[in-house]
């Protein structure tokens, strides 16, 4: 269960992005999670709720952009319709070694935030 540590790290990165543009409340953090990143998106969602609970970002949402991996056999071409999360490196048809590409993403893509008026500042 390293999702908690990841959620805290995602919030740190998102907070940095917001802080560089003034005070604000995070609304949405969009992340990419690859099929082979060893991260369970649902667990990460729970961890996110825990990581932001009691903070100014408590109402924020973590949106996951799921990125599948691609497996290609030199003889048979791209392998379609395999089980999700499959790590097999041998072609199910001919037994040759497969090339695996992508699916290892674990990135913060975008942060959406609401600017907050600094304490003591006049509203317009």
């Amino acid at each position: 269960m390293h999702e908690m540590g990841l959620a805290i790290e995602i919030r740190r990165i998102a907070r940095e992005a917001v802080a560089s543009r003034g005070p604000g409340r995070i609304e949405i953090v969009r992340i990419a999670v690859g099929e082979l990143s060893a991260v369970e998106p649902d667990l990460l969602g729970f961890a996110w709720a825990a990581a932001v609970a009691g903070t100014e970002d408590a109402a924020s949402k973590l949106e996951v952009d799921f990125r599948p991996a691609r497996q290609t056999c030199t003889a048979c071409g791209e392998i379609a319709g395999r089980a999700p999360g499959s790590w097999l490196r041998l072609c199910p048809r001919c037994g040759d070694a497969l090339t695996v590409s992508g699916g290892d993403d674990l990135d913060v893509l975008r942060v959406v935030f609401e600017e907050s008026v600094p304490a003591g500042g006049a509203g317009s």
Partner: protein
Amino acid sequence: MIEVDVKQGVLAANAAAAATLRAKFEASGTLVVNLISSPGSGKTTLLEKTAAALKASLRLGALEGDIATERDAERLRRMGIPARQILTGGSCHLDARLVGRALAEEGPALAGLDILFIENVGNLICPTSYDLGEDFKVVLLSVTEGEDKPFKYPAIFSKAAVTVVTKTDLLPYVPFDLTAAREQVRALNPEGTLVEVSATTGAGMDAWLSLLTEKLAAKRVKKLVGAASA
């Protein structure tokens, strides 16, 4: 509402810390091995026997990751090699910052080694994602765990350059299908190396020890060639 494009790896901070460590290990010519397995599969016992066999000819050292207790570091110190415990206090894996801090605090005792073993927290899932600046990962699979573990925990078996099947002296007593285990590992990791050992009887230990000394020699040669061409 304001949108900001970030495009930053969630593990970027760990990757940066790992790159710093890797550069240090490169400079000192230290081979670094990150050992990962489920609890009780024999990581520390394998390291004890490795220390006994190699400590006369090579400078070895170890970092021992656990939730609690100094037991593993004490076991390796009793074998005559420097070892430091890293207590994660509940965290399920080591990260590069923990390793960097432990090495900095330990100072000369774990500096300039020939081989540094990093024994990760017993867990087949989380340690897989964290680069510690190692040369390669080793995953252990004991015959008492069952031969289906590679397919159940595919990430580590496909990422580890070396799979060590341990406790092979128990094969007559457990329903472990060694052929199936070999096939699963090969299907996940066709370029990987598989060794089968019994630390208790010593069977297969030569292959494991040769693998370590060959990897160390390869790293040293690469460094010399790099220095000569620079």
